[in-house]
């Protein structure tokens, strides 16, 4: 699939932008802080109806718009897929309330028809690769969970809905736990929320388990290719709530080889999850928060029996992230039957010549790639000849003649 045109209003650095985009590789050239990353972010924003860079919608609103009485931000793109062309739109605006306060409201449309955010899934798929993605390997687990959620949300509407319901139930339960700690009250109020948490939480977990298992198949092959056959890599899912894993494995940090193979029927998972919540209940009331569930999941990058997050060198971690994003590309192709739009931000500068060429070769098979860079010299002439170059400067974009 590819993006034929993009329209931004009051998005980050862009006051207003109308841009036609060709197929094939596109080079976004410009100094830092001119709007390259924001353009990639805007496209990714349309894929899931939320920014992958911030959990606060309001932050994408153009700073000038903040001064306006009712600030808004609007992103629209024409997406060409194999069998159709659609216009996707996401708008966020601040609506006045009768009590004088304002509320952020997000609306999502496909071909001008309003839809639920979850139904954006499957209409535009992107692989976004940022320099700070190195933190996916060595950073805190919250980043890895967000990565998985963004990927699953691009493809499965059910995941978006179930995960929203899960988070809502957990925040309600946390508020109730704090109330029980401070003021007492009937602990039976927990049960209906726990039932909701159990049912949605198990589904979230199963989706994550599945995508990690499928990504691992690709990542292992790609990592071997990238390391000249020297090192394998696999993703290891460590669900916070896992009814099968013996508690001792928690401390060891590593799972037996066959751990991914197990299957359990869903009812048994519900029961075990309910029991796990019951066991922790006293502690949870004490802490005023839910301690069991997928909001505390972990995913590790294991290469040659070592956790890359802890033991990997900078270079090894970089290779792991590259392999992850390439696996993501393959997974999206396989799952949706179409190649996603590739969005690469300053990625080449970090790679050695061999990896750089490997990546550039691979772009030949992708329908559309947008590469943001400060340095056009990183790209060989042969590549630039078949590339559209756009110069970005202070939120304005102009085409550049190819040398």
């Amino acid at each position: 699939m590819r993006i034929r045109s993009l329209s931004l209003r009051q998005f980050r650095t862009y006051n207003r932008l109308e841009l036609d985009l060709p197929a094939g590789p596109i080079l976004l050239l410009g100094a830092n802080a001119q709007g390259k990353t924001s353009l990639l972010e805007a496209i990714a924003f349309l894929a899931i109806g939320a920014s992958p860079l911030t959990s606060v919608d309001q932050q994408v609103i153009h700073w000038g718009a903040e001064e306006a009485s009712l600030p808004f931000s609007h992103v629209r793109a024409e997406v060409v897929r194999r069998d159709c062309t659609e216009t996707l739109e996401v708008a966020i605006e601040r609506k006045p309330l009768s009590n004088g306060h304002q509320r952020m409201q997000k609306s999502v449309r496909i071909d001008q028809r309003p839809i639920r955010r979850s139904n954006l899934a499957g209409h535009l798929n992107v692989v976004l690769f940022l320099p700070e993605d190195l933190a996916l390997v060595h950073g805190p687990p919250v980043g890895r969970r967000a990565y998985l959620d963004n990927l699953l949300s691009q493809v499965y509407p059910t995941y978006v809905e179930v995960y929203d319901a899960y988070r809502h139930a957990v925040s309600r339960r946390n508020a109730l736990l704090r109330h029980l700690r401070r003021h007492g009250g009937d602990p039976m109020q927990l049960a209906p929320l726990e039932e909701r948490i159990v049912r949605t939480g198990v589904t979230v977990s199963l989706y994550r388990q599945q995508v990690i298992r499928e990504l691992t198949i690709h990542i292992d092959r790609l990592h071997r290719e990238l390391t000249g056959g020297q090192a394998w890599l696999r993703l290891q899912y460590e669900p916070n709530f896992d009814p099968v894993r013996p508690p001792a494995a928690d401390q060891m940090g590593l799972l037996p080889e066959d751990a991914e193979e197990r299957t359990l029927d869903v009812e048994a998972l519900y029961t075990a999850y309910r029991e796990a919540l019951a066991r922790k209940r006293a502690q949870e009331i004490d802490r005023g928060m839910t301690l069991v569930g997928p909001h505390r999941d972990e995913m590790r990058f294991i290469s040659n029996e070592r956790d890359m997050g802890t033991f990997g060198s900078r270079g090894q971690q970089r290779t792991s992230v590259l392999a992850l994003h390439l696996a993501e590309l393959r997974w999206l192709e396989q799952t949706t039957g179409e190649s996603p739009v590739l969005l690469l931000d300053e990625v080449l500068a970090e790679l050695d010549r061999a990896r750089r060429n490997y990546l550039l070769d691979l772009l030949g098979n992708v329908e559309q790639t947008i590469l943001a860079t400060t340095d056009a010299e990183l790209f060989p002439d042969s590549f630039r000849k078949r590339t559209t170059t756009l110069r970005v400067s202070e939120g304005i974009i102009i085409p550049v003649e190819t040398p």
Partner: protein
Amino acid sequence: MTTAAVPPSVTQLIETFAELPGIGPKTASRLAFFLLRGKSELALRLAEALQGLVNNTHFCSTCYNVTEADPCPICADQLRDQQLVCVIEEPMDLLSLERTDNYHGVYHVLHGALSPLEGIFAEDLRIAELEKRVREGAIREIILATNPTSEGDYTAAYLVQRLKPLGVRVTRLGRGLPVGGDLEYADAVTLSRALESRQDL
């Protein structure tokens, strides 16, 4: 309304109006000046009505609906089925159900729904009173008619836990009500159908 040109008694009325749901500062001043401009007769009638609201109404000690008499006319009506109790969130919901002309039991008003994020818990609702009513009275069936929202569903699920062990039949309004909507806005036909298709819990 920051100018000194507006006397405090007017400002105070405007600010009071603005505290009402659905009324912004603009409408509030329009209302205040309307009362000011018109004959004092309307303002006095309004004052009297408000006084009556405060002084003459209270909650029915059985069903907690708003009433002037205790028990309320519905609880006192021997032609109604006193063994069938419909549990609702707000007094407004009672009006919707009465409009269907298809319900002849009595009510129990919770005055809200469980909503931990808004700080509303079981002890803030008329739940203990409902439980007491079930324990003491000859109640055949409880119909849970809380709103089809996540708060309403949560409240219904919690009530089932509290009431089921008492041996009473508990049902929930059937499908057909718009999910996420309020009972208050459901039309009479839809509500009637939901009543008829209620399911055991």
